[in-house]
C-alpha cells in the first residue's frame, strides 16, 4: 500500500521524531545531585532509542529516495476519505465527546451504536440484501439497544467492572 514518496515523507518524520527524542534525552536530568551512578541516568535508554529511530528513519528515507520518492506525482497510498472520516468522527464523538458527562453508559452506547451501525449499513448496502428504510432503521435500533444493554449488564453486573 505504501509508495516511495509516502515512505520518504514518513522516513523524514521518523528522523525528526528520533532527533527530538534524542535531544530531550540528552537534556534530561542526570540526577548528579543525588550522586547516582552516571550509567543509570534515566535518559540513557530513550537516548539510544532516539538515535536508532533517527538512523533507521534516515535509512527508510534514503531507500525511498533511491526508489524514486523524490519524483513528483508518486503520491501517498490513498485512504478512502469519506468512510475513514466518518468512522473517525463517530468514534471520537462517542469516546471523547459523549462519555464521562454523567449520562448513563447504556444510553450513550445506544446512541453511538444506532448512528454508527445505520451509517455503515447504508454505505455497505451494495454488499447485502436490499431492505426498506423503515426496516433498516428498526433492525438497527434493535441491534444497538440489545448490544448497549448487554455490554452494560455483562461488564457492570456480572464482572463488576466500572464503566466510563
Amino acid at each position: 500500500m505504501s509508495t516511495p514518496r509516502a515512505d520518504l515523507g514518513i522516513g523524514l518524520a521518523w528522523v525528526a521524531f528520533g532527533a527530538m527524542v534524542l535531544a530531550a534525552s540528552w537534556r534530561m536530568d542526570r540526577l548528579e545531585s543525588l550522586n547516582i551512578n552516571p550509567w543509570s541516568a534515566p535518559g540513557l535508554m530513550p537516548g539510544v532509542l532516539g538515535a536508532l529511530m533517527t538512523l533507521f528513519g534516515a535509512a527508510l528515507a534514503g531507500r525511498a529516495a533511491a526508489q524514486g520518492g523524490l519524483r513528483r506525482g508518486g503520491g501517498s497510498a490513498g485512504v478512502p476519505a469519506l468512510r475513514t472520516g466518518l468512522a473517525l468522527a463517530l468514534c471520537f464523538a462517542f469516546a471523547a465527546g459523549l462519555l464521562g458527562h454523567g449520562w448513563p453508559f447504556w444510553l450513550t452506547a445506544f446512541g453511538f451504536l444506532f448512528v454508527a451501525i445505520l451509517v455503515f449499513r447504508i454505505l455497505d448496502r451494495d454488499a447485502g440484501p436490499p431492505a426498506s428504510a423503515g426496516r433498516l432503521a428498526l433492525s438497527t435500533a434493535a441491534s444497538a439497544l440489545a448490544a448497549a444493554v448487554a455490554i452494560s449488564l455483562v461488564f457492570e453486573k456480572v464482572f463488576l467492572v466500572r464503566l466510563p
Partner: protein
Amino acid sequence: MEGLTLLATSLAGLLGPWQILYALGATLLGIVVGILPGLSATLGIALMTTLTVNMAATDAILVLVCVYVGAIYGGSRTGILLNIPGTAANAAATLDGHALAKQGKAGHAMGISTSGSVAGSLFGVMCLATLTPLLAEVALKFQAFEFFWLALLGVLMSGSLTGNDPLKGWLMGFLGLFTAQIGLDGIHAHARFTFGYNDLAGGIALIPALVGAFGFAEILMVLSEPAKKAAINAVDSILPRIADVLKYWKTILRSGAIGVFMGILPGVGEDMGAWVSYAAAKRFSREREQFGQGSIEGMMAAETGDNAAIPGAIIPALALAVPGSAPAAVLMAAMIIHGVQPGPMLMVNQPQFAYDVVAITFMATLCILLFGLMMVRPLMWVLRVPRAIIMPIVFVLCTVGAYAIASRVFDIWVMLGVGVLCFFLRRNGFPVAPFVLGVVLGDIVDKSLRRGLVISDGDLTPFFWRPIAGVLAAIVLLTVLLQFHAVRRIILRGV
C-alpha cells in the same frame, strides 16, 4: 516426579463446575473472535483481560488462554469458507482450506483443521510442561546482559518477520520500546517525557495501547474499505477423520516441533509457525503438486504448526518473561496484573502456577475438540452478521476495555491516539506486532541496559563476551545486518 504431582494438582483444580463453564465459554468466545475477520487473538485477550480483572488469577488465565487457543483455531473457518483468514495465523491454512471448500469439501477441511489444531496443541502442551522448567533453570544463570539482548532480539525478530519490510518493523519496535519509557523510570522513579502531566507520570498503560493498536486501528481499517459480498459454500461432513491423522503422522510431528520452536523464538509467533510448517511439509511431501490446490497434508501442517506455536509462545513468556508472540505478550501482561511475576524465578516462587498454565492449555485443547465436533454449523451464523453491526459494537468494547482496568478517562485517550497512529502507519506498511512487543519489553530493555552498565561500570565487553550474551548479541547483529544486500553478499562470498 514433583512436576507430575504439580500437574495433577493443577488438573484437579480445573475440574470445578465454574472452571469448566469458564473454559467452555471462553473457548467459544475465542472461536467467534477468530471467525470474525478483523478481530485478532491479541485483541480478544486484551479485552478479556479487562473483563476478568476481578477474578482469581488462575480463573482469569484460564479464560485468557481459552480465548487465545479458540481464536487461533476459529480463524481457519473464515479462511476455508471466505478465503479471508480470520487471524494472521490462519493465512497458510487458507491456501488449501479454501481450495478444498471450492471442491465442495469445506466440512472435510474443517475436520482437518480440528484434527491438526488439536494434535498441534497437544504436542505443544507436552513441550510446555517439559521445556518451561528446563528453560527457567538455564535462565537462572542470566544476568542483565543476557536479558537486554534477549528482549531486544524479541523486538527485532518480530520486526523482521511480521511484516513485509524489516526496516519498518524495527522502527515500530523502537517506537514501542520508546512508548514504554514514558512515565516514571523503573530505577530512580524520575519522570520521563511527562511534560508535567500527572496522567503521563503513570506511563502509557499496556492494555489501552494494545486495544488501540489491535482494536481501534483494525476497526478503522475495516470500516474505511467498502464491504465485499460474502459467499459461503455448502458444508459437508465436519467430523475429523482418524485416517488423515494416521496417514500424515510424520507431518503432524514435524509441524508440531516446528510450531513449538517458532513459538519459543521471541516475538515470532503463530503465523510463522504455520508458514514454516507448511513450507517444510511441501518440501518433504510426495504430493507436492497438490499444495495450494486443496492439499490435506498442507492444511494439516499449517493448522498443526500454528496451534503448536501457542504453547510454544507461552514457554518463554513464563520462563524468561520474554513472550514468543503478540497474544502471549498480552497474556504475560495479564499475569502481571494478577500478581504473577513471570521469569526465571517463577519456577522457584510459584511452580504451581506454571503447571496451572499447562493444565489450562490442555483444557483449552479439549474444548476446541468439543466445539470442533459439535458447534461448526451453529457458529457459521457469525459470518452472516454484517461488519457494519460488528465493528461499532467492538469499538464500544474497546472503549470499555481501555477504561476499565484503572478507571481513567486518560486511558480512553491513549486508546484513541494509539489507534489512529497505528491505522495510518499500517496503511503505509508498518506492522503493529513489533510495537506491542516493544511496549511489553521496554521496561526489561531499559533496566537491563542500565543495570548491566552499572555492574560493569560502563564497560561494554560483558554485553559481548559472556557466552550466552555473546551468542544473543551475534544473533541480534546478524538479524539486522543480514537484511542489507551488501552485507549478505559479503557473508555469502565468505562462505
